[in-house]
């Protein structure tokens, strides 16, 4: 666990526009996220990481996995600004989403948090942050 950074937690004073569900299996992920820690599953057989966390290893279909902390650092692979969105996201338009390659070798897609005066571009280094909505957390990324 040493060397793993905690994620910045940013309060957002509304509820999530499209709340994720929690299953018995994914509950540890959401609980850790709320506490500022990023973790996912690692296959007990082949050792491969998976994200989102999965009860079955997508690489070798082994059915035993373990929770592992992840360093919340990576690079922006690509991004876009969404100007026309679904009804539930209307109040947030426009907003940015992006694809992030974590240093750990996992690719994620998530909401981006803009830093005033800096525009996103591919290959920029990012860090993951936790958006603390009134009803629960969401993972997002910011330029480093």
């Amino acid at each position: 666990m040493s060397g793993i950074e905690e994620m910045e937690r940013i309060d957002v004073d509304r509820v999530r526009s499209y709340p994720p569900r929690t299953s018995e299996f994914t509950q540890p992920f959401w609980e850790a996220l709320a506490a500022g820690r990023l973790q996912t599953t690692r296959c007990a057989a082949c050792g491969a990481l998976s994200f989102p966390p999965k009860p079955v290893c997508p690489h070798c279909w082994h059915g035993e996995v373990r929770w592992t902390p992840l360093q919340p650092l990576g690079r922006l692979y690509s991004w876009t600004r969404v100007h026309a969105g679904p009804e539930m996201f209307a109040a947030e338009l426009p907003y940015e989403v992006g694809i992030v390659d974590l240093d750990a070798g996992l690719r994620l897609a998530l909401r981006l948090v803009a830093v005033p005066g800096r525009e996103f571009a591919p290959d920029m280094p990012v860090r993951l942050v936790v958006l603390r909505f009134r009803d629960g957390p969401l993972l997002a990324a910011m330029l480093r």
Partner: protein
Amino acid sequence: MRRAAILGTAAVPVRKYQRKASEPIQTVEHEMIARLVVEAMQDAQVEKSEVNAIVCAHPRPYTKQKYFSTFMAHYLRLPCSGVVMETMGNGMTAALAFDKACDEILLGRAEVALAFGVNMEMSVTSAEHMKDSVRATGDVDFHSPSGLIPISWYAMDAVRYMHEYGATRAQLASVAVKNRAHAALNPLAQYRAPITLDEVLAQRPIVEPLGLYEVPPRGDGAACLVIVSEARAKASGLPYVLVRGRGFFHEGAHQISEVPNDMIRFVAAETAGRLAYEAAGIGPGDLDLAELYAPCTIVEVLAGEALGLAPRGQGAAAAAAGETRLGGRIPISTSGGLTSRGHPSYATPLYGMVELAEQLRGRAGARQVEDAELGLSSNELGNYNAALVHVLEARR
């Protein structure tokens, strides 16, 4: 080995057909399909008694009549010992209907099969419609909450493509201009008034860098194909379109690969294309035209590259240079493509087939590709994570 052929086609022009529930007169999908079946059958000069299978694209949830395929077997009073079913698979839905109808021919279960699809959604606003499509943007619990929409994936393809290859906004936008010029010549197209490059670039952004004219419009539509065995097609004495090769590939990812990969190399199209070319015994250079399922300008570029119609990284430049235009080296989407012919999603792939069948039977009028002998259809799902490719051949 049995082979399948297209012998008849029919489609309605893409536009708004569906009416709000509050209106006194409603558009009813099964009446529309019944009329198209009659029209396609006349085109094919086939008798009702010869038809033995129905494969139908699963309609939108806004279509009230449930279990549409079995209902149509009833409405048309068509006993079948070939299958009656609906297919579902994202944007590939109607392509799978075509493909499974062909399978009934290949497996000897039918000599004549109907493949049809109807997509009605225009009584529903875009914002309301997207409430549903947000569930398709990846993992519903891990991706959807971020506000991704289906075309945001393509927008991110565009950003990465411009970053890696130095392609320009204008090059991408030229695809939309070209497609509109094609649509101007297609009576089935939804948007037919010519547009300029400046107009495309001046549109309001939808998913940056793509603006309104580079993303798919919404529309209603319906199409029907009469698929027959090669022997039946030959016996007809009519021009027909032979399915000469076919390939399918799913890369094992939906929208995103959790293992970082080269996202703008469309591996599924590459692999499905290779399988289809091998089956047909041709190479991409032998094609006379291609009809690509490409919801956004960037998708046409990347799919074209994956299918060998342009070198990697040069697809946008090739489009801007006119290579994919009617009269160019390899005309792509002579129908006007999804951006201008229109995109009634669950019927869209059938419109692509209708266009190829028109071209390969020499009936495309002002947009006819001269001496078109070989055409390619490519359909996809997700972020081109799967591709279903058919090589079609003119037989006269």
